């Protein structure tokens, strides 16, 4: 049971949603954007978050789009993970999000919710980083479309009252050779020890990771080491481990040594399989 009360509002436009958020803020209240809502409900139940208002984005038509228009795949932030997988429009993303939580939860968890999760994993972002995704953000009357990497570097850099409306992907990235690998500690359903999503574009492997550091990341330096095919695979893997953006996570889900061991094997498997597609 959630012990605190809040207002639940379901606006029908992005402008209205942002205005509600900013008005609440101006009046000294805390508002939260709500998409699938699974994290707000579970953290609220144990008093790890509190809010005066939740603004449900599922009523906004733009946030529910899932279609290819012209040369872009458009994914609304309120589209569920299962809808993305079943659509088969971007197989790498479909396979990556298919390993988040369990099947029933994925009917409720949305891509926008996963990307804005309080948890360090945010696995849905991995294929988006590898595919140079753009994002459409809304704040007040304004909307802007910018590269994902311009607003996500270790964490989101959004303005107050700004929220994710859509993800935009160049159609040319959707059907490239790819591989998603997720290793968990025990059962198939669980947080990743290591999760990676990779695709091959112009003979170059692009790869993003979760569970390795305190945030999901893609590293150009690391990719350049992995793509140096003159060097034997395991040597490349060893060198790549020296190009991580920070120390490997060491926690109850997996020690640093164990995560390093798993990461090494994930990279080896990725390279062996993807290099055959070049």
């Amino acid at each position, binding site marked *: 049971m959630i012990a605190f*009360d809040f207002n*639940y509002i379901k606006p029908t436009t992005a402008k209205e949603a942002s205005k509600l958020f900013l008005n609440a803020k101006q*009046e000294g209240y805390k508002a939260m954007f709500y998409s699938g*809502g699974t994290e707000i*409900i579970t953290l609220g*139940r144990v008093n790890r978050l509190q809010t005066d208002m939740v603004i449900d984005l599922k009523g906004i038509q733009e946030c529910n789009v899932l279609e290819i228009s012209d040369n872009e795949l458009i994914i609304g932030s309120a589209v569920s993970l299962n809808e993305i997988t079943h659509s088969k429009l971007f197989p790498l993303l479909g396979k990556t999000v298919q390993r988040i939580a*369990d099947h*029933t939860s994925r*009917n*409720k968890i949305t891509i926008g919710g996963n990307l804005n999760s309080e948890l360090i994993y945010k696995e849905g972002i991995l294929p988006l980083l590898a595919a140079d995704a753009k994002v459409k953000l809304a704040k007040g009357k304004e909307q802007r479309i910018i590269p994902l990497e311009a607003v996500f570097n270790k964490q989101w850099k959004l303005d107050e009252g700004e929220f994710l409306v859509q993800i935009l992907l160049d159609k040319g990235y959707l059907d490239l050779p790819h591989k998603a690998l997720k290793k968990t500690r025990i059962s198939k359903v669980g947080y990743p020890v290591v999760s990676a999503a990779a695709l091959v574009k112009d003979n170059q492997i692009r790869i993003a990771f979760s569970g390795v550091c305190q945030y999901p990341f893609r590293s150009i330096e690391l990719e350049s080491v992995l793509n140096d095919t003159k060097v034997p695979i395991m040597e490349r893997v060893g060198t790549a481990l020296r190009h991580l953006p920070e120390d490997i996570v060491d926690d109850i889900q997996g020690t640093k040594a164990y995560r390093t061991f798993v990461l090494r094997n994930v990279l080896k498997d990725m390279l062996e399989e993807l290099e055959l597609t070049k």
Partner: protein
Amino acid sequence: MKSLSKASKQLIQLHVNGETHDAVVRSADTLLIALREQLGLTGAKRACENGDCGACTVLVNGKSSHSCLSLAVEVVNQPITTIEGLLDSPVSKAFVDNWAIQCGYCTPGFIVNCHSLITTHPNADDQLVEEWLQSNICRCTGYEEIREAVHTLLASGQKENE
């Protein structure tokens, strides 16, 4: 600071098992709480309340959903099916026939989820069955009989009506 009117309770209508019910809920009440405490539908079980175990599974718009992970106010105007709406369903019968039950606490959630699986994918393969069944936990670990019940139904090609 102006006062934000946080109505502590409101009257909503929930469409459950083909009937419309009035319910007085807080915005913070989950669907699970509304079903059990307002409508008296206690088939969906209160267990982890964290979306981990599936004991509270219901169908929302025909899709399996952890009722502990939805707000009641969020599913107004959406058709909801609970275990009470699947009385004498082929899945329930298959669970009985295959002894897919021990203490019974997880059973409603499993039946609702399996009903959705068989309705949506009458030709589901082993991999798909495994993926769907991972959403539910049986504290008695009676998984083999549950799997058998699903495979029996799939083999018989028996489609269920919603």
